[in-house]
C-alpha cells in the first residue's frame, strides 16, 4: 500500500493556479524529494500534504485514506520547517513535550520517547537549553526530534538545510539520511538543492512552474532526463545545450554535425536541441579528424578536475577534464563529444526524443 498518493492535485489562489494536476505515488518507507527552483510549487505541494493548505482540486490520500478535508493533526504526519519553527520560550525538552501533548500519553511514555529521541539525535546534553542557546545545526536536530517523538507515519521536510552553512549542511544531510535508514519512515522532502536530492532520495520529483517534469530515481533523472529543464537542472556543471536541425539523418548545428544515435526518433528537418554533459566532452589528439576546434576562454581548476570554458564555432560550452589535462586560456585545442552520451530533445517541446 502506498503511503501517500496525489491524484491530479491542483492548488489555486483565486484565479492564479500554482500547482497543476500533480500525480504522485509514494511508497511506504520511501524517501521522496520534491526538487525544483523557487516558485515551482514544491513547497505548496508539501503544505497540501501537511494540511496547511487546502487542496483546490484532485485527491490526496495518506495511508490509503483520502485526507483532503482532514485536519493536519489527523493525517499522521510530522513536519520539519525551514526555520525550525521551535517555540523560542521553551527548552528543548518542553518543545518535544508540547508536540506530544495532544497525544495525552503517560508521563513515563513521554519521558521515554523524548530520552530515546534525544539519544538518537545526540541532544541529551542540550535538553534544558532554549533555542536561542543552540547552534543552527542543533536547532535543526531539535526540530527533527520534535517531529520524531510523535512517531508519525510520514515525515515532511521543508527545505530543512537551507539555513545552515555549507559544511553543516553536508553533515546534517548525512544525519538525515542515516536517520531515514534507521527509522524507515516515509519521507517527503522539499529542496531546491540537487545535491540533497541526489544524495538522499529514493525518488526525485522534479517540478517546474507547478508541473511535474519528471519522476525517477536519482540515476534515472541524471542519465535520462525527460526534458531540457531536467537535463540542465540536474548535474553540475549543467549540461551543454546546442540548437540544431536534422539534416540528412544528422544533427547539424553551425559547424557541428553528429550522427543520431539509434535510440532517438527524429524526422528530417526537425528542430532539435542537443545536450552533452561537460564530462562527456573529451580532449582529442590534434590529428583527430572527427574532432572539433575549440578555443579555451577560461580555465577553472577544481582539484581533481578542471572546467574549460570553450568556444566551438559560435557555441559556448563547458568541458570537465582531468586537472592534469587542463589547458592555458587562449589556446585552441581539439575536442571530441562522446556520442554515446548525447541527449536529443525536441526544440519546440523540450521533450526528449528518446524512444
Amino acid at each position, binding site marked *: 500500500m502506498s503511503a501517500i498518493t496525489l491524484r491530479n492535485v491542483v492548488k489555486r489562489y483565486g484565479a492564479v493556479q500554482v500547482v497543476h494536476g500533480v500525480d504522485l505515488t509514494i511508497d511506504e518507507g520511501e524517501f521522496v524529494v520534491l526538487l525544483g527552483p523557487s516558485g515551482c510549487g514544491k513547497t505548496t505541494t508539501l503544505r497540501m500534504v*501537511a494540511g496547511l493548505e487546502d487542496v483546490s482540486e484532485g485527491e490526496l490520500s495518506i495511508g490509503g485514506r483520502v485526507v483532503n478535508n482532514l485536519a493536519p493533526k489527523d493525517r499522521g504526519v510530522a513536519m520539519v520547517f525551514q526555520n525550525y519553527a521551535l517555540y523560542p520560550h*521553551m527548552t528543548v525538552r518542553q518543545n518535544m513535550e508540547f508536540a506530544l501533548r*495532544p497525544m495525552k500519553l503517560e508521563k513515563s511514555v513521554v519521558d521515554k520517547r523524548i530520552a530515546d529521541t534525544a539519544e538518537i539525535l545526540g541532544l541529551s546534553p542540550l535538553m534544558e537549553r532554549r533555542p536561542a542557546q543552540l547552534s543552527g545545526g542543533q536547532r535543526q536536530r531539535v526540530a527533527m526530534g520534535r517531529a520524531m517523538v510523535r512517531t508519525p507515519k510520514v515525515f515532511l521536510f521543508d527545505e530543512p538545510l537551507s539555513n545552515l552553512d555549507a559544511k553543516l549542511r553536508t553533515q546534517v544531510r548525512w544525519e538525515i539520511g542515516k536517520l531515514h535508514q534507521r527509522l524507515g519512515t516515509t519521507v517527503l522532502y522539499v529542496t531546491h538543492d540537487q545535491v540533497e536530492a541526489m544524495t538522499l532520495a529514493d525518488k526525485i520529483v522534479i517540478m517546474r512552474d507547478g508541473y511535474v517534469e519528471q519522476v525517477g530515481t536519482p540515476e534515472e533523472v541524471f542519465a535520462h532526463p525527460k526534458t531540457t529543464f531536467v537535463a540542465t537542472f540536474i548535474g553540475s556543471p549543467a549540461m551543454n545545450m546546442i540548437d540544431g536541425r536534422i539534416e540528412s539523418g544528422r544533427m547539424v548545428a553551425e559547424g557541428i554535425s553528429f550522427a543520431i544515435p539509434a535510440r532517438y526518433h527524429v524526422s528530417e528537418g526537425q528542430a532539435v536541441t542537443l545536450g552533452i554533459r561537460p564530462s562527456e566532452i573529451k580532449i582529442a589528439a590534434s590529428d583527430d579528424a572527427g574532432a572539433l576546434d575549440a578555443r579555451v576562454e577560461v580555465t577553472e581548476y577544481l582539484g581533481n578536475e578542471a572546467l574549460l570554458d570553450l568556444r566551438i564555432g559560435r557555441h559556448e560550452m563547458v568541458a570537465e577534464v582531468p586537472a592534469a589535462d587542463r589547458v592555458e586560456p587562449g589556446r585552441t585545442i581539439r575536442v571530441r563529444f562522446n556520442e554515446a552520451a548525447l541527449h536529443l530533445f525536441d526544440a519546440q517541446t523540450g521533450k526528449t526524443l528518446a524512444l
Partner: protein
Amino acid sequence: MGYIQRRNRRIFLIFLFPVIVALFATTIYPMLYAGWLSFRNYDLAKPFIPRVFVGWANYAEVLSSGPFLHALITTFKLMAITLSVQLVLGVGIALLVTQKLRGMGLVRTLLLIPMMISPVIVGLVWLFLYFPELGYLNYFLSLIGLGPVSWITSTDWALLAIAIADIWQWTPFVMMGTAAALQSLSPEPYEAARIDGNSRWDVFSRVTLPQLKPVLVSLMFLRAIDAFKIYDIIFVLTKGGPADSTEVISLYIYRQSFTFWRMGVGAAASFVSLIIISVLITLFFKSLQRGQASKG
C-alpha cells in the same frame, strides 16, 4: 586628547545645552521647588500665615491621614480593575484584529480613536452617557427593561463607572501594543502546533501568551503609572464623589493644594505617593519578571 576631540566635545555641549536647560526648567526645577515646598507651611490663599520651614510635619500629616490612606486604597482598587480588564480585553481584541480578514485594518484604526481623545473629552462623553435620568446608557438599559443605574451618583457604581471610562479609553493602547507584538511572532511555530494537533487554548496559553509576556508586562507597567495619575476623567465625572468613593490620590493632592491651598501638604503628598508608587510598581514587576525567569 587632541584639538579636534576637544572641539567636538565643545560643539557637543553647545548642542546639548538647550536640552539641559529645557530639562531643568520643565522637570528638575519644578521637582526641586516641590521638594522645597513640601517642608514648608505654604498657604497660597492666606498670605498672613507665615510660610515657614516645618520639617517633616507635612509628611507626618499625610502619612497619618485617613483620607490619604483611603485615596491610596481607592487608587489601587481602580488600578486593579482597569488594568486587569484592559489586559484581558486588549489581548482579546488584539487576537481578533490580527486575524487576516478583510477590513481589519480599518477596524483597528477605528479602535484607536478613544486613545487619541483628550481625557477631559472622554470624561464629557461618558458624562453624557452616565448622566442621571437623561443619560444614553440608562436609556439603552431601559429599552431592555433594566436600570436605571445611578452610574456616577451612587457609591456602589461610581468607581466602576470611572473604571469603564478609563477602560474604554485605554484598552486600545493595550490592544495596539499586543497586536504589534502578535504580528512580530513567527508564524511557523503555529503551523507546527497545527500539525502536531495542539488545542487552541494550549497554543494561546503556552505559545502565544508566554511570548507576549514581556510586551504585556511593559504595557501594564505604563498603564499602572498612568492609572496612578488618573485625574481628568474623575474630575469631569465625579470630582471624587459621591461620598469619597472615587477619591484617588491625585484628587487628594489637588484638594490639599487648590482647595485648602496647603501647597506644602500637597507637595508632601505628591512625594509620598511618588515613592509608594515607585516602590510598589517596581516590586510588583520585579516579581513578575522573576517569575518568568525561574520558569525558564
